[in-house]
């Protein structure tokens, strides 16, 4: 599958080491992805990495939030306006909201995990009446590490969602909550029969949150999480993304805890 050329039309630095790029097709567009899906982004001559969609615009442009953690992501992260990026996709299974109609929703984002959840939240705004109480919990390493800070403030002020931010390490100018995301999560009063949860962040974080939700009575099938593994093809033929029986690019990245629960805790699986 050949990459398709997309041009960087907007670049917004989010934190010290993460930026959101908005891309538009240089010629023919790829199929529009759904929240939770990912594309393979190619930094010419350097390599390709899987990045979840962090924004889907009506005009066909796609946004990706990229953190500089290696050679490929460094190149993508610093791509200049107007430059071309190779894109393949969309791939994978995205967030399932159709099974949560009528439910209260709990969305927990840790660190960069907010990026794949952002398009989910934006999509929910368009169908707000279909859901009950929507709570978004966002954790970050420190106050300067939150992604989409202005947007989070707007969501909080808008009245449609409850937004709770929390940091692992406070800074002197932070007067807000301090604690792991499981702290505000534990304080939620939930009706387990009519709640669906969406989790995204480092795997241990999702495990801790899922365990807490299950302890509160949520069925594992109603806790969705987004998995990550080394991916090189995106279509289930290179073998790198295996997690036990799952090919994460094809059977995920979004899976339920009923599927992934006994996989994510296994050492070196």
């Amino acid at each position: 599958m050949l990459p398709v050329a997309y041009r960087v039309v907007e670049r917004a630095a989010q934190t010290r080491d993460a930026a959101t790029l908005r891309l538009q097709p240089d010629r023919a567009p790829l199929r529009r992805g759904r929240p939770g899906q990912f594309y393979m982004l190619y930094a010419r001559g350097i390599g390709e990495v899987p990045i979840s969609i962090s924004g889907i615009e009506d005009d066909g442009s796609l946004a990706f939030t990229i953190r500089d953690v290696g050679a490929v992501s460094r190149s993508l992260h610093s791509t200049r306006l107007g430059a071309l990026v190779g894109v393949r996709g969309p791939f994978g299974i995205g967030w399932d909201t159709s099974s949560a109609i009528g439910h209260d929703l709990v969305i927990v984002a840790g660190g960069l995990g907010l990026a794949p959840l952002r398009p989910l939240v934006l999509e929910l705004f368009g169908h707000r009446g279909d859901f009950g109480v929507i709570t978004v919990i966002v954790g970050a390493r420190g106050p300067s590490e939150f992604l989409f800070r202005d947007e989070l403030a707007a969501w909080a002020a808008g009245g449609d969602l409850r937004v709770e931010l929390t940091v692992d390490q406070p800074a002197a100018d932070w007067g807000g909550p301090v604690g792991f995301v499981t702290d505000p999560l534990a304080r939620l009063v939930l009706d387990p029969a009519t709640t669906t949860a969406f989790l995204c962040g480092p795997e241990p974080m999702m495990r801790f949150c899922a365990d807490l939700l299950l302890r509160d009575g949520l069925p594992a099938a109603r806790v969705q999480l987004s998995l990550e593994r080394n991916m090189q093809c995106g279509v289930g033929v290179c073998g790198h993304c295996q997690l036990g029986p799952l090919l994460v690019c094809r059977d995920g990245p979004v899976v339920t805890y009923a599927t992934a629960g006994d996989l994510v805790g296994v050492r070196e699986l």
Partner: protein
Amino acid sequence: MRGRRGDGPVVLDVIGLDGLLTALRTDGYRVIGPTVRDDAIVLEEIDSVDRLPAGWGVDARPGHYRLRRRADAAMFAHSAGAHSWKQFLHPPRQRLFTEDGAGYQPADDDYPRLAFFGVHGCDLAAIARLRTVLGGTAAFARRADGLFVVAVACTEPGDVCFCASAGTGPAPGTGYDVALTELAGPDDHWFLAEAGSDAGTRALAAVPSRRAATAAETEQAHTAVVDAATRMGRRLPPGDLRDLLHDSRESPRWDDVAQRCLTCGNCTMVCPTCFCTSTEDVTDLTGAHAERAERWASCFELDFSFLHGGSVRRSSASRYRQWMTHKLATWHDQFGSSGCVGCGRCIAWCPVGIDITAEAAALAREHAGDA
């Protein structure tokens, strides 16, 4: 390939076999078959049956492979060679695209029509496994779709063979154009040949020296194959291996294997169904020309599972567990069948002689002990 059987089995002698090979070449196929090179039996393009390893057998044992001279002139009585047919359908390295500033160009490749000459039952099943996994990719489809397969039933299983318990032999399953059974004795040397498709029927019809097989000849050939099933060198344990491997995730046996496994990846290279690849992206020094290639990869490579600053599977125990569990168990979840065809190559070519059937049996004993 459809299973129309034409006019019933025919008998070919060695000249007739060569006639079949020649007919395929005349038809434009590049014929790949076993041949002796560098003290081993390898797979290469061949132009006549003279290139086949007549009279050569193999002494294959855990961590051991040697040719040996046979008393007869059998051409297909060998197994567990380091080559498998996968290298022709899924090459060790292939370019995917180039980019020279004017857009992405798929890599040019020629896709010759291939005829595989001498595919044992295990390897025939392996081709089908690869088709299931890779059949959706354009390059594989172009290589595999025009394939002509001359399968060969095994009458003399090797010491490391376990196709019977893997359900893939000694008789070839579906997917061949022509199936041969070789009967090689001190006085004669002939082949029972059966068509498995229209193309196979046509190919056999082009061999002038063929004659219809007698009932006795057909019986003799089939009996030889049935007997072979009872003389397998080893076997997989009975029962549901998917459940067994799943339940064995935390077994101490993995640490035991890890004491021996070098994570060299030989097993994955010689395995006819291992398909994992890694992509390589390069440019020239000016950056004007970029290209991507894919190359065979192995889940035994330390950075195969690299993620977030380190590999998910660092220890040899976890990497061996991944390979064996995938091969025997999670392949079912991913692709609907076992990934192992019982060819025994991994056993012969493991430098320390690790035997997947013995490891499976050890897990089964441990599991039964717990139950």
